[in-house]
């Protein structure tokens, strides 16, 4: 065992292929670019987290006494903009997608490696510029930039922030184009579409949404800039503009953006559940259809953000119906993951705990989506903490749990090191409880009428805010823990074998960490998730007989 470990240590791999700063900043290796993205999103995650920590501290008391109302508004705007565009949207696609997509389909790199590097530079430049704007000047519009507030009334740095977000949008589009081309053109011999791991399908569906939706965000923000800077009447009603036009355009991007965050998460969870249940994924082809269905239907539900905006009552019904329809494939995916456990051989390593967390939290997020799709209920709870809780269950309970699940699953592959398993399991459990502790009270206070984005609030809501802030403290610790043990593992962790989880999938056929060209020999492609034969018995260990 130790002999193989030291062999792995000596083997050439992408991490050892040059150690200068230049070898990282001018690399075209998709694995190194993935690491660059990972460093970026980690920094932005903690910036967004710091902003919301101050917000949660402020909300411990009903009076607005810790920061001024202006600062409060700027803080939640930082949190929203940074977490949505600089963390969640690139989180899984730009890190695991970048690292794993070529390896999973048996390719040497992405189709356009230099475009991939450009994508990172656009991301880091746009995001850093925006964050400097947000911290030095400040923007108080919320991440939604609603007009006419953003175009005519806010006297903060809307122009520069919007410009930065547009630049980061181009990074999304380039990454999406790259992934689509790679999936179409570079699959290894034998890697048919229905042999693709679901993670690849998730990234592929996400890329389609990125390429189709993100340009609309760029156009929308350009219109905001045009009105604010060039004084063109686009949203100003007194000059024939329409403020609701902005909301239609904005949500036409921003609802699909939710699927940009959740589809890759679904892919990650599919990989983890199959591996740790040692089971073929139940209903593989249905899972694929569901991913595609969510990506397509997701384009036709944007109006459910606007039930009280003054749009027509009939439009409300159409968008409500479409929202119920998009719930169907999401529900089927949850059923299929659950069914995959049946007759499995389940172990509870850290990635699996995160996947279980995802299942519970995503289910709650999805079910509360039914409340919001029901127009009369939505009229009451929209723009309250109920909505905040709902989308955090999807984006944090769902997407972030899956991100951490994926991180624990593929960390040995990416770094070639193992991490302390019991610390990781502890962090997973702490994150699950901290999360519920933070966000479940928000459902209750939202139903009771606590509006969003309030700096001060009536005292009867205080008990829920205190619970939520206490939970946020637990959650904060749970997010810091992995930072510590991963840092330790990177330098001192035990060397990881090529396939520490005995998982299927081409990424486990190459060494940990993989060599620069990903594979020394051409990998053998089989069905994904061949954890047991389609027919015939398997033993109690879940091994093939």
């Amino acid at each position, binding site marked *: 065992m130790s002999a193989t470990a030291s062999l792995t240590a000596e083997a050439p791999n992408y991490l050892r292929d040059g150690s200068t700063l230049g070898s990282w900043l001018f690399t075209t290796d998709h694995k190194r670019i993935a690491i660059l993205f990972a460093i970026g999103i980690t920094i932005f995650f903690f910036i967004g987290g710091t902003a919301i920590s101050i917000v949660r501290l402020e909300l411990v008391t009903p009076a*607005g006494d810790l920061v001024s*109302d*202006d600062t409060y*508004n700027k803080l939640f705007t930082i949190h929203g903009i940074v977490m949505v565009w600089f963390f969640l949207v690139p989180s899984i696609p730009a890190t695991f997608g970048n690292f794993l997509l070529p390896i999973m389909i048996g390719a040497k790199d992405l189709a356009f490696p230099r475009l991939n590097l450009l994508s990172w530079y656009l991301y880091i430049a746009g995001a850093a510029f925006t964050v400097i704007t947000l911290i030095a000047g400040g923007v108080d519009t*919320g991440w*939604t930039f*609603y007009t006419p*507030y953003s175009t*005519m*009334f806010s006297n903060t740095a809307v122009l520069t922030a919007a410009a930065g977000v547009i630049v980061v949008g181009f990074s999304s589009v380039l990454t999406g184009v790259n992934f689509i081309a790679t999936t179409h053109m570079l699959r290894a011999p034998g890697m048919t579409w229905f042999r693709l791991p679901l993670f690849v399908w998730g990234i592929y569906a996400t890329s389609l949404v990125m390429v189709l939706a993100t340009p609309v965000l760029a156009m929308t923000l350009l219109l905001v800039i045009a009105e604010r800077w060039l004084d063109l009447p686009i949203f100003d*009603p*007194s000059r*024939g503009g329409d403020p609701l036009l902005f909301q239609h355009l904005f949500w036409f991007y921003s609802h699909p953006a939710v699927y940009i965050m959740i589809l890759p998460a679904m892919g990650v969870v599919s990989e983890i559940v199959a591996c740790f249940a*040692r089971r073929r994924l139940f209903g593989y082809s249905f899972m694929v259809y569901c991913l595609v269905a969510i990506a397509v239907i997701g384009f036709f539900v944007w109006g459910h953000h606007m039930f*009280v*905006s*003054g749009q027509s009552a009939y439009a409300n*019904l159409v968008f409500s119906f479409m929202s*119920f329809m998009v*719930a*169907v494939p999401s*529900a*089927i995916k949850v*059923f*299929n993951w*659950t069914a995959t*456990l*049946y*007759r*499995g*051989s389940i172990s509870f390593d850290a990635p699996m705990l995160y996947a*279980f967390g995802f*299942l*519970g939290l995503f*289910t*709650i997020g999805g*079910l509360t989506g*039914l*409340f919001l799709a*029901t127009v*009369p*209920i939505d*009229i*009451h709870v*929209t*723009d309250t903490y109920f909505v905040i809780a709902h989308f955090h269950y999807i984006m944090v309970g769902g997407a972030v749990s899956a991100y951490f699940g994926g991180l624990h699953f593929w960390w040995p592959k990416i770094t070639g090191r193992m991490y302390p398993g019991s610390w990781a399991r502890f962090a997973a459990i702490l994150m699950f409880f901290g999360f519920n502790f933070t966000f479940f009270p928000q459902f*209750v206070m939202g*139903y*009771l*009428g606590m*509006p*969003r*984005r309030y700096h*001060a609030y*009536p005292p009867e809501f205080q008990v829920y805010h205190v619970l939520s802030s206490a939970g946020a403290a637990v959650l904060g610790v749970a997010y810091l823990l992995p930072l510590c043990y991963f840092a330790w593992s990177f330098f001192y962790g035990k060397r990881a074998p090529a396939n520490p989880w005995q998982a299927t999938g081409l990424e486990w056929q190459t060494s940990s960490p993989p060599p620069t060209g990903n594979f020394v020999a051409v990998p053998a492609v089989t069905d994904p998730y061949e954890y047991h*034969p*389609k*027919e015939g*018995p398997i033993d*109690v260990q879940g091994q093939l007989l």
Partner: protein
Amino acid sequence: MTGMKLLLPEASKMAREVDIAFFVVLAISLVIFLTLFVLLVAFAARYRRGTCVPRGPLPRVLQHEIEIGWTAGTVFLAIFIFWWFVSGLPLPPRYAPNQLEIHVVAKQWMWKTQHPDGAREIDALHIPVGQPVRLVMTSQDVIHSFFVPAFRLKQDVLPGRDTELVFTPTEPGTFHLFCAEYCGTQHSHMTGEVVVMTPQDYAAWLRAQPHGDTLVRQGEALYAKLGCGACHSPQSQVRAPKLAGVFGNTVVLAGGGRAIADEAYLRKSILSPRDEIAAGYPPIMPSYAALASSSDIEALVAYIKSQSVQGQHR
């Protein structure tokens, strides 16, 4: 029920319906969630690694039929919930003569309300219990949202157009009024209260208020000041639509469309008259956006309306 902290007072007819819908969807969600939760825990326990249980491939019947079964079931459930709440929806609110019509103007960061007889309030709204109320709302600056949790009602208030809320308060009491759409620095201070009173108390309260001109009178004065009658009065030589009786009618538009002459249409016709020209008239009216503030337009619309509706409060 009212003693429980988890429940909001139900103070309007709508509130009861929203709560029924809420708790029905909650019950459905709980059934689904608990089923999944029990299955997850049971599978996790029974099939944890090392237990001695059968783990062969699934029987064929479980592989496809069950998938089709729960897909169909989920589609059916989704359509059922949709059908069920839609069938219970009230029709879009229409003008009715028995409604108490109150005008609401939102601005950063206050609510201004005006009663039919001219009484005005700031950050407060007094209304009698049991009386259908119709709020006609507009904003002077950004988008706000009129939210009364106890009524389970919320409606965005937009600049440059009217939105409406129709409701009937059913319980006397004092309830929160919140601005629910983020509107700038002091958004969280854009709150107020809705006081629902018995009809007698309301009448007494109304008498005690200082009365300005009613909205209709203000509108009449503006109508004269801005010279609207020069074109729109029956004696005018200019070919312009006569306004008496226009409110509530269908207007045939140049180009073949039709529009109902409601508040939104009248407002639009004052602000950008050339967008929807009544058929047969030349498009000669200029925009009055620069000459009339949004409260002025409320008043003008109220005046034009009073020329059409019999028994309108004056």
